């Protein structure tokens, strides 16, 4: 008996998305193989490009790992964008306030500030959900808006580069202290300390989720809140913890975006994507594609990082807008979230040879009870 399991369906979903991308490239009058070549060249062509891909993947990994924590506790965190911004703002404020502190002190402080900023921004919707029954999808979206406007206000006013006040008024900070910059790891490449920090964070989250009592409680709350409550676990506290930790990791992504950037400034274009590069959303894609597992999110983020750097090269070489990468990300999400049901159907068909129509749309499904928290969270660490 053949059963379709594991990674085949998500990979199939990605294949469909890339086929769509190839079709787009054909529609734009280019050869898709040239396009693929350009993307691979852009993402992995030189040592520095591999480094750039890793740097591009870092915010996705941090946000994505945070998303896995939230999802395991059955809360949906759409507030990555706002939490990135909150972490970036607080860490930038620290770097602006004490720029001359030695690097050995300042860099850890800046990182801590990012964790705290993002953590607070994540814990707020956690508190609102746990104690006031406010839907976290909505509150995180609203807090994204608040964070963007807070950033606009601070960068146009209190935190603006003094030179810009009389100059062209670009909403950005001055160049931040070199003592706060994430050090370059390999000279001549863009690889900086943020990359290993993110990978270590992913491993720590894995250990936390699957090897500690805290992780057990978070997953228990996610799996069945009533049973968890009956077992004496505080559902409320764990919801706040899950969103707080999730936000803290996004805040760390904000630190990486500011203090790992070549310009070493926080700059806004009035929206959020100008600063975050939509990492708050793309991180969700990376986490989903990594089956909501912290360790699988590492290669998954790298894949999506390479999609982004590859798309930059695609634009340079073949004049195909790099927005293609974002569109493909969207398709991958749709394919991956749909794949559970497709897999059930395919397996059923393989098992019994029943026609598809018999299963559509509302047939009882004893193997697959309706899962409100959705997205087919894989059981355990396995």
């Amino acid at each position, binding site marked *: 008996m053949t059963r379709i399991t594991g990674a085949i369906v998500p990979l199939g979903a990605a294949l469909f998305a890339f086929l769509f991308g190839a079709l787009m490239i054909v529609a734009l009058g280019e050869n898709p193989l040239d396009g693929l070549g350009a993307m691979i060249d852009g993402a992995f062509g030189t040592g520095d490009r591999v480094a750039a891909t890793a740097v591009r993947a870092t915010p996705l990994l941090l946000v994505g790992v945070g998303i896995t924590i939230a999802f395991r506790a059955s809360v949906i965190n759409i507030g990555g964008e706002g939490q990135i911004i909150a972490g970036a703002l607080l860490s930038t404020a620290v770097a602006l306030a004490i720029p001359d502190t030695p690097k050995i002190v300042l860099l850890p402080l800046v990182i801590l500030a990012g964790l705290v900023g993002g953590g607070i921004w994540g814990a707020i919707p956690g508190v609102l959900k746990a104690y006031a029954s406010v839907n976290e999808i909505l509150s995180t979206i609203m*807090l994204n808006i608040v964070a963007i406007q807070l950033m606009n206000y601070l960068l146009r006013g209190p935190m603006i580069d003094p030179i810009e006040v009389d100059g062209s008024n670009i909403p950005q900070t001055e160049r931040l202290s070199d003592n706060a910059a994430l050090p370059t790891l390999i000279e001549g490449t863009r690889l900086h300390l943020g990359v290993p920090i993110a990978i270590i964070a992913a491993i720590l989250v894995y250990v936390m989720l699957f090897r500690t009592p805290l992780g057990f409680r978070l997953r228990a709350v996610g799996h069945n809140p009533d049973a968890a409550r009956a077992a004496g676990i505080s559902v409320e506290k764990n919801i706040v913890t899950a969103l707080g930790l999730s936000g803290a990791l996004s805040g760390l992504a904000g630190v990486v975006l500011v203090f790992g950037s070549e310009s070493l400034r926080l700059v806004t274009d009035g929206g959020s994507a100008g600063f975050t590069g939509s990492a708050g959303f793309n991180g*969700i894609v990376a986490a989903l594609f990594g089956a909501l597992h912290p360790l699988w999110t590492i290669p998954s983020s790298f894949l999506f990082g390479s999609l982004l750097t590859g798309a930059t090269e695609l634009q340079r070489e073949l004049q195909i807008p790099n*927005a293609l990468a974002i569109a493909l990300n969207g398709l991958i999400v*749709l394919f991956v979230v749909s794949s559970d049901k497709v897999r059930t159907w395919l397996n059923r068909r393989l098992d019994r040879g029943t026609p598809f129509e018999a299963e559509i749309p509302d047939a009882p499904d004893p193997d697959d009870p309706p899962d409100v928290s959705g997205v087919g969270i894989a059981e355990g660490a396995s």
Partner: protein
Amino acid sequence: MSDFFTVSVLVATLATAIRFSVPYLLAALGETIGQRSGVLNLGVDGTMLLGAFGAYYTVLETGSHLLGIVVGIAIGLLMGLVYAIVTVFLQAEQGISGIGIFLFGLGFSDLLFQELVGTPKPIKPLPTLDKLPGVGGIFEPLVDIEHLGTLLFKHNLLTYLAFFLVPVVTWVLMKTTFGMNVRAVGENPQAADSLGVSVARTRFIAITIGSAFAGLAGATLSLQLAIFQHNLTNGIGFIAVALVYFGAWQPRWVMSGALLYGLVTATRIKWQSLDIIPQGASDIAAMAPAIITILALVLLASRVRGPAALTKPFTRH
């Protein structure tokens, strides 16, 4: 600072507020229909962006506003079909599926814009009531009424259509068989199913209609602004989703929320351009609607109950 709070500034601000609120209103009305059937669509913003680009590009190429609007609605319908297949037939998690629709719309509208248009080219603006070809003359005396004319009669047809749709959607939801089915499958799909109402078909139709509203909302936005650019909506679609909760799933309260957003946006942009308030105050004011929405959600969450089956895929037992 001399014209602080003069009547004409206030009237102009209110008139702008009404115009600004239209994309929020249309998108939120559509989302209301979908949510009443038990399906959350977080992808409104992406659908709006595609609708906005489709309408903009059609007007740029053909010069016909009507055709642009039709294209915007058609794109909304198409995206609604995709979303309905994903969430109703494939029973995917709704919050995340919506993010997929959003990212696709964000990327694809930008891709098409860069490829087909490149640099932003303005299109001809939507005519206001008094400038409508042929019949505009009839409305001229109304527009000339001091203040009231500007406030009520100097809008484009889409504005009137949007506000006219508020009672229409209420009527459809509350008084028609289709509306009763929508509410039934949103409240208790098991019971509706046992009475012979097809849950899947009802949700499918509700989602598709709701998404068509989002396409129209996007078209309205780009035609009102007479321009398109990357991420034109800047989150309006996400706010529209929140407005449905804010408005407790009642079209008239959803409309109030849309007007609130329009009012705050119009006030800060208008007053900032008149130097009544500085940029900093405008940025802070821009946070206000989001914070008010959160506070409203806190107050409403324990008092108002949404459709009981919202976000829950239906499986027959």
